[in-house]
């Protein structure tokens, strides 16, 4: 049979494909039928939090930080309750990460504050002596892309039925109409910060990346 296959590339390829695809058929597809259901009380990310998540992705925090607390005592002691599948129901993409050069962040919102993050992102060693994390000073001046975050909320609402309210609607006008609410949320974060430039920027209607990122990190609980 194998000799015959090796002389018939078409059937050879079909054979290889079937053998490769078999595992996916058994292992992956069944999981699709049963989509991750949200845990009770899980709210979708606000637009500001989504913008923060996009900064988390842009600067690849995931390269060093996980968001997955494994069910071991050493981990629950350190980070809090172990992670549940339903907590990730609105995570597109999932951001579990694969390396902990720094600590896990899945519940960082429980034990770190806006003020702590502001100091830490400006100069990590100021709050964690010996830290090898780089400073992310550019986040204090770069402006977060709120429009794209809004577009993401619209997309997941309309296509994946993520339960957003009526304020999330397609189109640039709808975004402009929702913008004051986003800015109000940003103001609350900025109120907890010291950096005057950041406060001024938010007042002027621009959300610095650091504000969105902190909104996202505070949300991780």
């Amino acid at each position, binding site marked *: 049979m*194998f000799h015959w296959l*090796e*002389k018939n*590339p078409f059937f*050879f390829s079909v054979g*290889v*494909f079937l*053998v*490769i*695809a078999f*595992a*996916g058929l058994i*292992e*992956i597809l069944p*999981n*699709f039928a049963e*989509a991750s259901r949200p845990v009770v009380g899980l709210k979708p990310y606000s637009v500001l939090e989504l913008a923060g998540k*996009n900064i988390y*992705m842009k*600067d*690849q*925090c995931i*390269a*060093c930080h996980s968001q*997955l607390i*494994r069910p071991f005592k*050493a981990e629950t*002691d*350190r980070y809090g309750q172990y*992670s549940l*599948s339903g907590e*990730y*129901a*609105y995570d*597109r*993409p*999932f*951001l579990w*990460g*694969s*390396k*902990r050069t*720094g600590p896990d962040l899945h519940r960082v919102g429980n034990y770190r504050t806006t003020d702590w993050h502001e100091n830490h992102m400006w100069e990590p060693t100021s709050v*964690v002596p010996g*830290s*090898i994390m*780089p*400073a*992310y000073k550019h986040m204090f001046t770069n402006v977060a*892309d709120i*429009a*794209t975050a*809004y*577009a*993401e909320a*619209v*997309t997941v609402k309309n*296509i994946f039925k993520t339960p957003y309210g009526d304020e999330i609607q397609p*189109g*640039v006008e709808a975004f402009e109409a929702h913008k004051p609410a986003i800015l109000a949320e940003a103001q609350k974060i900025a109120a907890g910060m010291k950096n005057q430039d950041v406060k001024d920027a938010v007042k002027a209607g621009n959300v610095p990346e650091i504000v969105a990122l902190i909104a996202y990190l505070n949300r991780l609980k």
Partner: protein
Amino acid sequence: MQSNAALEYDYSVAKLFTYTAILFGFVGMLIGTLIAAQLAFPELNYLLGEYGTFSRLRPLHTNVVIYGFTLSGVWATFYYSAQRVLKVSMAESKFIMFLGKFHFGLYLVAAVAMVLTLLMGITTSKEYAQMEWPLDIIIVVIWVTWGLAMFALIGIRREKALYISMWYFIACFLGVAMLYLFNNMEVPTYFASGGVGSMMHSVSMYAGTNDALVQWWWGHNAVAFVFTVPIVAMIYYFLPKESGQAVYSYKLSLLSFWGLMFVYLWAGSHHLLWSTVPDWMQTMGSIFSVVLILPSWGSAINMLLTMKGEWNQLTENPLIKFMVLASTFYMLSTLEGPIQAIKSVNAIAHFTDWIPGHVHDGVLGWVAFMIMAALFHMAPRMFKREIYSKKLIEAQFWLQTTAVVLYFTSMWIAGITQGMMWRAVDEYGNLMYSFIDTVTVLHPYYAIRALSGVLFLTGFLMFAYNMVKTMTSSRKLEEEPQFSSPMA
């Protein structure tokens, strides 16, 4: 039987991919060395402003070495060896020549776009699938073009039976195609929101645990079908060619090929042990990872036994040395992987530096060694000149071998130290170390790893120099060498 002499093979596409393999190899390893050094000396994070932090550069390193260096190497060797094992020249068909050149041109465009977008922070954040949706579409076109070129060559072949290397190239094509399409299903937000925000952003079709499963089904099998399958294709072609020995066992190659194809895909979920994916999938991933030792070692042993009775070549021919060490590192890596996939070991190893340690004994010791040896073998045949310097290859071999050993030993120690410290408790059951203690303790190992990066990169520069000299100023060859590659 067709005689070899009647065929003039056309290497123009193979040469183009050889150049990019050298270029991207250098760039990717340079970034790798830099980010390794950043972990030991954090002040190195500020060389390029916001574009130079570890976090921004790490995906650039992985993507450039995987899709830049490795794929260039794969395609250089494919466009070289496929003609030879199929006994047909690219020059016989204008269509195939066009496909080959189009393949390369589009690949170069995509590679440059990949580097730029990742530097700018435009990413989907899914490991080894970071490129955003417009690039994904270009990649699909590239992949289909390669497939067309391959099957067109197969279509006009003179040698009816496909040689083992071709099995693996076909598998590489099919496997990556299937997995890549599934994992990169994403919705561009600009078009789904009535034109708000950036054109480049997308969201994954899958959420949370589902996304994780699809991602690591892909992530693990990017290792399978980019770092293993086409590299096995190379060693099955180049080791017998360079040594003049026939492959030891046809049956063993059958067993390891079909075994590898069947088993590899199951193992993806071993990246998600102790996570929130269903338990039975984790167990399947774990079990099949251990089973995976068989087909992996099957190929490696087949290659080592091919050298039976000819071990003297190991002292005489540095290319044989590279290839034999490559298959040895393949064995090490494919034993280490399954060990890490055992649930209790994984509890310590996961999230630590043991994982990059494992990756690098595979990619440096196996993938990079094999690609460099293959390109060295091809050079005298493509450029009709002898290899510029044997001494330089010898020096490169020992330098890089030292580098690989330093890399994985330091990361073994670092990983296990970290894994143990994370879970250490005092006599009252309280955690003994704060997280930062487990970071600062790793400094010496990070420094050793950075040094190993410098050594490997230096070796790669020696390789690049040797190749360039071979192409330009080495002694000309009258006729094509039969087996062992001539070198000065």
